[in-house]
């Protein structure tokens, strides 16, 4: 390269953070001093750092050693490996580096070849340093945008991957069928929010006369909540199938979830067992919204709570079971706060009032129709508002002995 006019660096954009490293490749040894002189202010401000190589091969060696180089400015005619050969290699092996080629004025053949081999831009000899600086800044701006886009993409991929995993975990543990006999019917549904939470429900057929029903809501969202939910569900299932009473089951789950629970995650968990020979429903409520009892005829009342703690918080906590006597055609409706806290116009919540009225109205509908009617009404109420929490509802109806 050769010198031409004076350069000014005052109008240059500033680059924040780390200096940008540029490799200048030219067999003209005087160029190094010239570049350092012309860009001295920006070098002093630690915006730009220059390194120098004297042919294409030397440039490749430097690039292999130094990952920090973002940009290459290269002459074309050089010994050992010329600029066009260098471009070809860069294009194939270092796609993140942008290069600017320096060619003789009017040498359109070489400029075409360089551009076809992936040069980002070119400047002509004799070098106009003002033009070179504008070209450098244009190239660096382009590089910054590319990097930002790449990093956004990677973050987005990671995030959506995490959401997918959490959602899959959550959906994979839901019951695939709804137990029913002549003595009882069940149904349940869970609609995960966009940002996956940790709701779940489960049914356990304990023996031909007894059916267990559980619903839980884990604090927090994403993979941590999904993992905690799976642990809770597996622990409950194992203890429940061994025949534990609801309070025994919750105590067992609580003790294990509380171990090493550094993040203070917790789960509100309700578990109850219906004995179809008697209609007795024995249950334990670990900090969960009280389920609704829908009596035949449409009277809806909250199931008296056993006043137990959410699980995962207090190891050794001892839980209590209560028993409710169900009559033929009474039903239990279990739900999570995604139902009652769904927001409609003006931030008003769906609330227990609306839920109870609806349950009274559809008193004897099929279990499946009850859950879908609740979901439909919650959605209608929420209108355009996005669903911020998982919505879960479960119905167990007793049909008598």
């Amino acid at each position, binding site marked *: 390269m050769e010198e031409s006019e004076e350069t000014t660096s005052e109008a240059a954009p500033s680059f924040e953070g780390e200096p940008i490293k540029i490799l200048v490749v030219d067999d003209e040894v005087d160029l190094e001093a010239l570049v350092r002189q012309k860009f001295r202010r920006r070098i002093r401000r630690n915006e730009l750092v220059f390194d120098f190589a004297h042919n294409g091969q030397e440039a490749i060696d430097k690039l292999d050693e130094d990952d920090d180089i973002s940009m290459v400015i290269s002459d074309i005619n050089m010994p050992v490996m010329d600029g066009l050969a260098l471009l070809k290699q860069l294009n194939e092996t270092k796609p993140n580096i942008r290069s600017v080629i320096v060619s003789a004025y009017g040498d359109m053949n070489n400029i075409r070849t360089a551009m076809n081999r992936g040069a980002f831009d070119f400047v002509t000899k004799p070098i106009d340093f003002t033009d070179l600086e504008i070209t450098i800044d244009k190239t660096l701006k382009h590089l910054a945008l590319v990097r930002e886009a790449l990093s956004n993409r990677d973050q987005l991929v990671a995030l959506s991957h995490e959401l997918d995993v959490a959602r899959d975990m959550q959906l994979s543990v839901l019951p695939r069928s709804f137990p029913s006999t002549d003595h009882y019917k069940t149904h349940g549904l869970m609609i995960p929010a966009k940002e996956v939470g940790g709701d779940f429900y489960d049914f356990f057929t304990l023996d031909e006369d007894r059916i267990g029903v559980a619903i839980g809501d884990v*604090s927090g*969202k994403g993979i941590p909540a999904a993992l905690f939910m799976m642990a809770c569900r597996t622990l409950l299932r194992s203890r429940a199938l061994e025949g534990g009473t609801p309070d025994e089951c919750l105590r067992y789950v609580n003790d294990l979830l509380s171990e090493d629970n550094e993040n203070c*995650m917790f789960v509100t968990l309700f578990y109850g067992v219906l004995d179809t020979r008697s209609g007795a429903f024995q249950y334990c409520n670990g*900090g*969960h919204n009280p389920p609704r009892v829908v009596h035949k005829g449409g009277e809806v009342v909250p199931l008296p709570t056993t006043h137990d*703690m959410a699980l995962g918080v207090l190891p050794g906590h001892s839980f209590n079971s209560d028993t409710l006597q169900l009559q033929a055609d009474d039903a239990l409706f279990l739900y999570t*706060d995604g139902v009652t806290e769904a927001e409609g116009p003006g931030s008003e919540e769906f609330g227990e009032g609306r839920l109870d009225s609806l349950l009274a109205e559809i008193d004897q509908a099929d279990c499946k129709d009850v859950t879908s009617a609740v979901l439909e009404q919650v959605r209608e109420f929420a209108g355009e508002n996005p669903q*911020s929490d998982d919505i879960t509802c479960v119905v167990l109806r007793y049909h008598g002995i």
Partner: protein
Amino acid sequence: MANGSVLDLSTETDGDTTVVIPSGRIDGSTASPFQEALLKLIEEGKGSLVVDFENIEYISSAGLRVLLLAAKQLQAGGRKIVLCAMRDHIAEVFKISGFSEILAIHPTRQDAINAG
């Protein structure tokens, strides 16, 4: 809804006691900044932490978790967390979840400061 929720935070001190007065909603979207703020106050303070709920309209399970975490941090240093001035529907959340059994809740800020 979680989207666009707002939670503002102001603090006062009374002797060694730090009083936090959050206002707005503590839910999935504000729990994380709330947690950061509380843990910072705990780190900087020496005495008890009083959380005044007078201006809190809503708290989700994510918010409850933050309070448990703060309580655990404080307990590790022999300090206390005291909550106060909850509206009825907020107090109900603490009651249903059982957390009113393990977190001290007082009717007024002064009661809470005295208890801390």
